[in-house]
């Protein structure tokens, strides 16, 4: 199979308006991925499936990943010429930057016909609150039907174009999305004889003065 860069160049050549970037993967597995812009995602997916050189006809895995807002502290080194003519001093400035979070959907594509893969596609939503719609790839690969419903159910990504977007694992009346990083589980805490660590914290919140009782 061609490398990710070659595929990116061919995609950019074929879809001039599309935004296709390579996300390198530092781990020894060497499975680098392609970050696609949401607008042309479905056409690119259709092309990847039908292109004779790639023929990625099996969408093996669809995964939701939650990247919450991250406070990035960057230390930039700037050389400041000393006004008194002395040696130039190197000054580090710490600039605090709030990187906007997003919900990401990762597709692992394989080719049964040509026996190669995986090609990893990444689609990112605008942000984690209101712009959470992404184009659904179920019309291209039917395998995404249940897995996209699961990403909607557990992460809250709305897939536009999905034939039957409902919750699949949680019951229909459930409101929140449990797999998000900032999910707070309901306080159905049940007393445990040996609370320690996270459970102890929850026990303290639940019973204001439980500490003595918790000792066996």
């Amino acid at each position, binding site marked *: 199979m061609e490398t990710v860069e070659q595929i990116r160049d061919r995609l950019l050549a074929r879809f001039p308006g599309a935004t296709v970037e390579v996300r390198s993967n530092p*781990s*020894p597995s060497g499975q680098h991925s392609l970050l696609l812009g949401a607008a042309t995602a479905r056409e690119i997916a259709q092309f990847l499936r039908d292109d004779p050189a790639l023929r990625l006809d099996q969408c*093996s895995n669809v995964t939701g990943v939650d990247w919450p807002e991250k406070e990035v502290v960057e230390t930039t080194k700037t050389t400041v010429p000393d006004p008194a003519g002395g040696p130039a001093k190197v000054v580090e400035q710490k600039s605090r930057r709030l990187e906007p979070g997003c919900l990401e959907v990762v597709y692992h594509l394989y080719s049964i016909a040509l026996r190669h893969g995986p090609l990893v596609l990444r689609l990112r939503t605008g942000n984690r609150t209101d712009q959470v719609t992404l184009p659904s790839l179920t019309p291209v690969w039917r395998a995404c039907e249940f*897995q996209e419903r699961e990403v909607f159910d557990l992460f809250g990504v709305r897939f536009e174009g999905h034939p039957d977007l409902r919750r699949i*694992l949680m019951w229909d009346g459930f409101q929140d999305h449990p797999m998000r990083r900032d999910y707070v589980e309901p306080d159905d805490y049940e007393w445990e004889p040996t609370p320690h660590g996270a459970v102890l914290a929850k026990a303290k919140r639940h019973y204001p003065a439980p500490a003595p009782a918790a000792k066996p």
Partner: protein
Amino acid sequence: MSAPDSSFLAPPAGSQVRAVHDEFHGDLLEVSMGPHHPSTHGVFRMIVTLDGETIVKLKPVFGYLHRNHEKLGENTSYLASMPYTDRLDYLNSMTNNWAYALAVERLAGLAVPARAEYLRVILAELTRLLNHSCLAGFLLQDCGCSGTPLMYAFREREKILDLFESLSGSRMMCNFQRFGGCRVDPSADWLAGVQQLTDGYGAFLDEFEALLTGNEIFMARTQGVGRLAAPLAISAGVTGPVLRASGVAHDLRKVDGYGAYPQFDFRVPLGDHGDTYDRYMVRILEMRESIQILRQALARLPDGPIMDPKAKLRGFRPKAGEAYGRIEGPKGEIGFYLISDGSPNPYRYRVRPPSFINLTILEDLCLGHTVADAVIILGSVDIVLGEVDR
């Protein structure tokens, strides 16, 4: 139950239901099969809309056994997730462990000694024997034989579980593989036990086939029932024996060539019709191939360490990055997708469950058949709810 609106009348694309429903005048009967039903292999529910005896619409409902296995994986260390993978597809704990170990080894770039690779192949093939004989037993139980084939299958399964127990300590929750090898080095008499089981398994399969494969009633009940076309199977991400029964030659042991599989020669059986009978027969033939692999693996089992000496047990922190590892489990392609951010807990821990995705085509298979067929089709697709709901 909301009144059945007319929109569902149009059968989904690619299904072979004749458009006879436009002039129907009898009212439709909505039956809910499950979650507490004798033949749904666990807490799985199908809302079936019947027009007389034939199925017009089938909506699978699951989530009754959902424990959010992936959130657990994110809050515990890499090692602590290993015993939880036993609880995914609770029939095949060895292959679940291997898939997770493979993904972590690919994430961290660990090497696995040859003896461990061979041992993993032996355990995976034993699990395949166990799973396929279980399936054949349950399928026949749904067809109506009052438990006889199921008991024969379970008699053989017990022998394999005893082997797992004497090696890993527990029959079904083995927690046996580690990142970079296996936990326990099998003793000589354990290997002799496996050899004895492999020699005896062929006789069991002959007896099982004599009981069922030529049985006219079984053939009448399963041939031509639940036909799955190859293109639909590929597009729906169906993997494992269900895909091979539709004639698609896709077996990860040959395609990916992971572990020690390239060193064994075995064949991959394919079906031509993609119906329930083919799905049953492909699994029976796969069992015979597994016996061949076991024989070769036992003959050429190398000596040496079973654990990569450099692999650290505690405080295992793979470098930042992500990896997707998959193996050919008995039910299909089971994969683990791990994103690591350098901390001892994985940032994202995703399981690619074959049963869950194979259910995508359940409605397409059942349309136009009767309730009795739907039960058999579900049995032939072979799902385990621990893996479907995670």
